């Protein structure tokens, strides 16, 4: 208590001596700096600090969400590869995990950023690994479907399909419980989810014009862009976290007793159904808790963006506190946002974990 009062009184005296304002009034003032990428939100230097910080949060969100999805895919693939009966594949996956895990993420970020911004050629002699895709020191360019009103309808159809698939699964489960008859609800659901948007797309005459990136002058115009900063951060985060996720997946699969798959086999369950009904639910129980902390890690590690100049929350808050001098408020904002993010992700994952956990069993 006394220590706390001591720090607070010191801080207040220091703030007073250095003529630093306190409070969050600065949020409504004009920011006066440009932001390199704005996640498709409108922003200009004349906007307020509040809006600038909002853009930062959106950018953090964007990298975290895309990172989580890609790292899960790559990590699961690597984890299964490490368990493969193929000696070569298993060894290569093990090599990947050992090397990537033991090198700091920041070094890897600098490495990727150097490769993209210094070692790739200029836009004029950009590499083109696929038609329409260009790698240059200005980032990665790829074609994008041209804006068309049908896209909105396709999104609506996708949502409708999801609802329909959920109803279908419920009906199938209830019928199986009542009569024992099975219904391929997974494939039917998948068909509905993917089929409805496809029908809408075909019904509108399949408008498949692509907006191609074209070299004009010193840079490309048109198409979509991953800036060097975004691409380096995404590569770094995904490659680094995938190594940890691979280990989690491997441990999860190994944790399921051999007897379980043998018993499922003895019951006459086909391999695929044994995997889905017997092995996977048990493996998930082991996988989910450590996976949660990896998702949290991606979110927190995305703050390293500040080192390579991607405008995430930390780097914008840093600019803000340098301009206004209000360090306490700036850092408070950073910490509050991350705490909210962390707590919400862990709350969601805890809820999911309760769903896959054994019912009635003690932890």
């Amino acid at each position: 208590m006394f220590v706390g009062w001591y720090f607070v009184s010191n801080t207040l005296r220091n703030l007073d001596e250095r003529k630093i304002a306190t409070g969050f009034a600065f949020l409504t003032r004009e920011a006066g700096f440009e932001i390199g990428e704005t996640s498709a939100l409108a922003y200009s230097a004349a906007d307020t600090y509040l809006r600038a910080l909002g853009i930062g949060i959106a950018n953090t969100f964007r990298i975290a969400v895309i990172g989580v999805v890609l790292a899960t895919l790559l990590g699961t693939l690597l984890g299964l590869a490490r368990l493969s009966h193929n000696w070569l594949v298993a060894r290569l996956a093990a090599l990947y995990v050992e090397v990537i895990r033991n090198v700091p993420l920041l070094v890897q970020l600098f490495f990727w950023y150097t490769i993209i911004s210094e070692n790739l050629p200029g836009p004029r002699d950009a590499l083109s690994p696929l038609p329409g895709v260009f790698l240059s020191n200005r980032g990665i360019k790829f074609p994008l479907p041209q804006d068309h009103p049908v896209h909105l309808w396709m999104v609506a159809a996708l949502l409708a399909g999801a609802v329909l698939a959920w109803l279908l699964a419920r009906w199938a489960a209830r019928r199986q419980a009542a009569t024992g008859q099975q219904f391929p609800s997974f494939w039917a659901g998948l068909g509905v989810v993917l089929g409805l948007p496809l029908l809408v797309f075909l019904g509108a005459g399949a408008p498949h014009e692509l907006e191609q990136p074209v070299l004009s002058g010193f840079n490309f115009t048109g198409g979509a862009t991953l800036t060097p900063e975004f691409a380096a951060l995404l590569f770094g985060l995904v490659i680094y976290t995938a190594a940890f996720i691979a280990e989690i997946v491997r441990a999860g699969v190994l944790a399921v007793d051999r007897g379980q798959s043998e018993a499922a086999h003895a019951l006459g369950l086909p391999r695929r159904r044994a995997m889905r009904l017997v092995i996977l639910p048990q493996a998930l129980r082991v996988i989910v808790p450590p996976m949660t902390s990896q998702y949290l890690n991606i979110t927190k590690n995305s703050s390293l963006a500040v080192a390579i100049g991607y405008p995430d929350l930390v780097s914008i808050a840093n600019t803000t506190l340098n301009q206004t001098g209000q360090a306490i408020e700036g850092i408070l904002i950073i910490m509050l946002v991350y705490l909210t993010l962390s707590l919400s992700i862990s709350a969601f994952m805890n809820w999911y974990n309760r769903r896959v956990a054994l019912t009635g069993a003690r932890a």
Partner: protein
Amino acid sequence: MSAVLRRTPALPGPLEWARVNLFSSVPNALLTLLSLYLLWKYVPPFVSWALLDAVWQAPSSKACREAAGAGACWAFIGEKHRFILFGTYPFEEHWRPGVSILLFLALYAVSAMRRFWTPWLVLAWLAGLTLIGMLMWGGVFGLRYVENERWGGLVLTLLLATFGIAFAFPLSIVLALGRRSEMPVVRAVCVIYIELIRGVPLISMLFMASVMMPLFLPSGVTVDKLLRAQTALILFAAAYLAEVVRGGLQAIPRGQYEAAEALGLSFAKRTALVILPQALKISIPPLVNTFIGLFKDTSLVVIIGLFDLLLALKTALNEPAWSGIGVEAYLFASLVYFVFCYAMSQYSQRLERDLARGPTARALKDT
């Protein structure tokens, strides 16, 4: 009898081995062929870039490019090795951080050997760290005083990591015990501390240390940047270590607590003599993993401008003479970090196997 037991089936020939392990089915064979193709396509060019065509001695990156356009420029590391190891430490005093690095390595090696796991080890650490402090700062025994703004390079990375672990570890034990305390206030404080720290990124702690901490102190008192960053690292690592220690504490069967209590031991004696030795022993492997994380995390001090291994490399790259060889520089940094972290992780895995056979593990399994 023994003759029968010794008659094992003959080892399979290489062809049989390849059939079982590489070509057991059509998809497996395709996978093998794809892997081989990728290896053949990327490994030889990398080897010739990194080793065969590389330039090992040259005065600048331009000379490197002229000597062999297609190879790596390792000459950079050779020319700048003093800077990478010791930063801007006064040149004629370089033996002091040099000896410090050796002392660090000796401390790590001694601590890794289970033979030396006695109370004397704590004393050895205290003596070692004091000696390193005296060597680096100087000002005693006729050594010139070197202010710590000039410390840098690999020795700074080792300093941050080692002092970070040395101070965070005791703090984490206090936090872990506090979290399991029966006093609600103590427990609440510990839970809030641990969860708050684990919820925010390290970088925000480092920013706090570099811009906020000066405001907390009375005017006139200044704490230098290195010490502030070190404090942030310690406070950060302690929260993560505390959770590992708590895991160890939870794994100790209730009987141990009850038996210690039945013997009439006080709380301090119960904890220090019965509970902690067992709890720490079983949490060593995850503790080492957290140490690896902290070692890697020290690289983040680059962002607040401390001169560690990584910033030394980055600074050297900014010289016009060495522009455009970032890839080599970062590969070298990766290699240095990899050597330390890989050694630690291999050690922790071996220890885990050893401890799984040891008496503690057996006792735990029986209960």
